[in-house]
């Protein structure tokens, strides 16, 4: 098959180093595991390298530097004026087996395009920050003694998997790294494996994502069947796509659809979402890294990777149904997860449902972008071209914003949980400090993650509260901050598609309503945790957190706040297209002015109205309702930082003016259903018991009777035969001689007879 000709690799030295991004963490995995074993056995050495955390930190820093070099190289080669579409797809290919570029050999290659660059930065940057956070979070907890090396080893292995998946140059390698991440997710959710709930959650996460992965594998096999290869350079080649489109466009849609089911499982979308809330059993850094910022993006990455199929001219209109399914799955999940988040009391579970909901936004955004790419004549029409690029860019930009904000929110929640737990400890275990330290996570029923045990923390943990406030605002889409730019883009694009095709009104409506719901549950979470009076003695004694935890919170707060600059730099057109390159068209200021005008004063009245409805719901109605119900003035004498004071003032004013009794809702069937996660987990368990357990019992019987039965019959038969044969061995040498003689005679006669 004809692959691409990559003759002009801009800076070979960088692309040659790129495999190190994957290899370094993988080596660190073995090193940390081995060193941890050695170090933990020796009490004086024990904390010498923070139980592997510092090694991991060094490796992740190196990875970030290499990633930034690779990204700079990519952007440089783009700026240098490569205008062929192909160079967008392949900046450089490194092949482990030979110096040249191969398309049909099995080798690990590096494939760099816009989507790679985006995900690579997100993964490398957040891995490093969350690693820093982990040192502050994991190493100060006595329960983690003697096992932190396991945490860091699995952590770096996960990073290796994520970076490998992003850089891989074929769907096969993508799948391999995808599974490495699944494994690490399983191991890290079950980090506290002696807790039955953690073991159960790990199993649930593993099995649920596995269901998706089976479909992904079938999809990949079908794709292989169609193209004869899984290399991106081959399957994205327009000549090859044309060839496939002629005969088997329907099969291709099925293959991509099955791959999408894999993405649904990995990114926790309805109906395979049940594992994500339970995955919060893992340590908080794991929730932040794997279940909020990186691994769950793998599904989105896979769908974004399918863009060349949807965008191909040869497949015009053929894949529109699949794009619709992607958008609908996203829309349903966005609303459903947001609704469940309304009633969660567990801080991390609110964030987990929020993650599902926001990932669903990105799926809807991608679905709409893919639909537009598939149905519009965007190769020849400049206006359509712009529409497709902006739709795709909005989804990718939301991925970026969400990863940054949600990683920060989880770290901030970890900081809160850590300090609440320590405060609880300080109060209740002061006398016997040290003795029963080892298993204090189990010996009482105090839940450090419940918002019942928080409240009024804004004055006690200023950095954490600020980070949480900015993160929440970013997720809510408060104008100018973080996710606002991308979320408005996704909502506007969903409505744009709904204009073309009325059946898209469903996802469009979902994302619009979801904006208001997001505003409510994120505000509720912040207000319940940080505003109002402390709910109990423990919350009143919480202290500020340590420096390792503060650093990443501080950095990410600025990343989320500077989203407006990213938008101005062209992140909203961050898509595989040569005409809308990174910062190539406008200066930063022009870009910001353009984005501002586009967002707030759209000349098309349709989008103008949609934007303001979304702002009204997400930034006014949702937070307003939450403010009327939760939070309030801080304790007497406590004061928050000046930038949080207005929020708390507004909150107490709204609460005083508009407070109402919502206990009728709290007791309603809907609230109970939401508390029980809409009974979906319950039905799955029932289905498992009835169908799977029933089938398993039958299968076990079949195994015992048919398969084991056959084996046993063979076994007993051979035993009785051997009884007979054994009686021939008398042990007497003379008998053996006789047998030899007779045997020789027989052979002789045989040979003679044949001759």
């Amino acid at each position, binding site marked *: 098959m004809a692959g691409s000709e990559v003759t002009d690799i801009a800076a070979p030295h960088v692309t040659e180093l790129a495999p190190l991004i994957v290899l370094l963490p993988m080596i660190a995995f073995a090193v940390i595991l081995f060193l941890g074993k050695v170090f933990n056995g020796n009490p004086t050495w024990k904390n010498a390298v923070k139980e592997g955390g510092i090694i991991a930190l060094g490796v992740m820093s190196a990875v970030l530097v290499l990633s930034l070099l690779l990204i700079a190289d990519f952007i440089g080669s783009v700026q240098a004026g490569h205008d062929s579409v192909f160079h967008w797809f392949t900046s450089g290919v490194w092949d482990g087996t030979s110096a040249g570029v191969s398309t049909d050999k099995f080798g690990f290659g590096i494939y760099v395009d816009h989507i790679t660059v985006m995900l690579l930065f997100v993964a490398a940057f957040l891995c490093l920050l969350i690693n820093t956070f982990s040192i502050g979070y994991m190493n100060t907890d006595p329960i983690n003694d003697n096992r932190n090396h396991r945490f860091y080893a699995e952590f770096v292995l996960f990073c290796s998997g994520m970076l490998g998946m992003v850089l891989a140059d074929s769907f096969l390698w993508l799948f391999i790294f995808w599974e490495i991440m699944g494994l690490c997710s399983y191991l890290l959710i079950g980090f506290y494996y002696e807790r039955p709930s953690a073991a159960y959650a790990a199993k649930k996460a593993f099995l649920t994502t596995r269901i998706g992965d089976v479909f992904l594998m079938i999809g990949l096999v079908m794709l292989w069947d169609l193209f004869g290869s899984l290399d991106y350079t081959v399957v994205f080649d327009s000549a090859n796509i044309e060839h496939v489109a002629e005969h088997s466009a329907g099969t291709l849609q099925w293959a991509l659809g099955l791959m999408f089911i894999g993405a649904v499982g990995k990114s926790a979308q309805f109906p395979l979402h049940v594992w994500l809330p339970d995955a919060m059993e893992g340590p908080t850094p794991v929730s932040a890294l794997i279940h909020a910022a990186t691994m769950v993006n793998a599904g989105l990455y896979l769908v974004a990777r399918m863009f060349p199929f949807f965008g191909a001219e040869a497949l015009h209109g053929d894949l529109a149904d699949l794009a619709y399914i992607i958008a609908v799955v996203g829309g349903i999940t966005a609303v459903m997860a947001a609704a469940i988040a309304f009633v969660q009391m567990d801080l991390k579970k609110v964030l987990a449902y929020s993650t599902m909901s926001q990932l669903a936004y990105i799926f809807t955004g991608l679905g709409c972008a893919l639909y537009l790419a598939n149905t519009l004549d965007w190769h020849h029409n400049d206006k359509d071209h712009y529409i497709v690029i902006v739709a795709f860019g909005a989804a990718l930009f939301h991925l970026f914003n969400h990863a940054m904000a949600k990683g920060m929110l989880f770290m901030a929640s970890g900081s809160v949980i850590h300090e609440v737990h320590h405060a609880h400890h300080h109060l209740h275990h002061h006398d016997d400090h040290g003795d029963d330290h080892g298993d204090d996570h189990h010996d009482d029923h105090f839940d450090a993650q419940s918002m019942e045990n928080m409240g009024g923390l804004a004055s006690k943990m200023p950095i954490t509260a600020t980070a949480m406030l900015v993160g929440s605002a970013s997720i809510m889409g408060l104008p100018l901050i973080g996710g606002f730019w991308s979320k408005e883009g996704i909502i506007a694009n969903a409505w744009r598609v709904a204009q073309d095709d009325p059946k898209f009104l469903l996802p469009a409506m979902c994302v619009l309503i979801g904006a208001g719901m997001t505003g409510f549950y994120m505000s509720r979470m912040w207000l319940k945790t940080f505003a109002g009076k402390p709910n109990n003695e423990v919350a009143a004694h919480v202290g500020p957190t340590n420096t390792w935890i503060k650093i990443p919170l501080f950095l990410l707060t600025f990343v989320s706040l500077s989203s407006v600059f990213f938008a101005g730099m062209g992140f909203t057109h961050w898509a595989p297209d040569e005409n809308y390159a990174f910062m190539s068209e406008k200066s930063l200021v022009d870009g910001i002015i353009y984005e501002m005008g586009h967002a707030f004063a759209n000349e098309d009245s349709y989008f103008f109205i949609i934007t303001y409805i979304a702002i009204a719901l997400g930034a006014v109605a949702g937070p307003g309702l939450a403010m009327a119900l939760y939070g309030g003035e801080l304790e007497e004498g406590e004061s928050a930082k000046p930038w949080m004071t207005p929020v708390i003032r507004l909150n107490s004013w709204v609460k005083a003016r508009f407070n109402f009794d919502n206990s009728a809702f709290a007791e309603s069937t809907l609230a109970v259903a939401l508390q029980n996660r809409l009974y979906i987990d319950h039905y799955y368990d029932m289905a498992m018991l009835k169908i799977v357990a029933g089938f398993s019992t039958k299968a076990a019987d079949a195994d015992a009777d048919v398969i084991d039965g056959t084996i046993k019959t063979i076994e007993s038969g051979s035993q009785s035969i051997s009884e007979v044969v054994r009686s021939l061995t008398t042990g*007497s040498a*003379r008998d053996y001689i006789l047998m030899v003689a007779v045997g020789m005679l027989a052979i002789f006669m045989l040979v003679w007879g044949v001759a």
Partner: protein
Amino acid sequence: MIDPALVSALSALMFVIGLGGAFTRKNAIIVLMCIELMLNAANMQFAAAAVHHGDTTGWVYTIFAIAIAASEVAIGLAIFLAMYGQHDTISLDDVDVLKN
């Protein structure tokens, strides 16, 4: 000169006597002697064939076989000594540890 066919017939007779003795007798030394008898039957067959074909290769084989037989007897007798040391007997019927 004796007809090689007669020598061959004698050789066959000796082989059968040796074979019969090897499975019927229980004294290990007699069995060894019977084995030697069979070996010598083979030597005789070589000699007969050498005469018949007028080829000295057969004689050479015979010489070799005699040399090997000598060392074989030495090893065999050594085994019987060791066997006697362990089992206090050289009767083959009493030595059946290979059974089962």
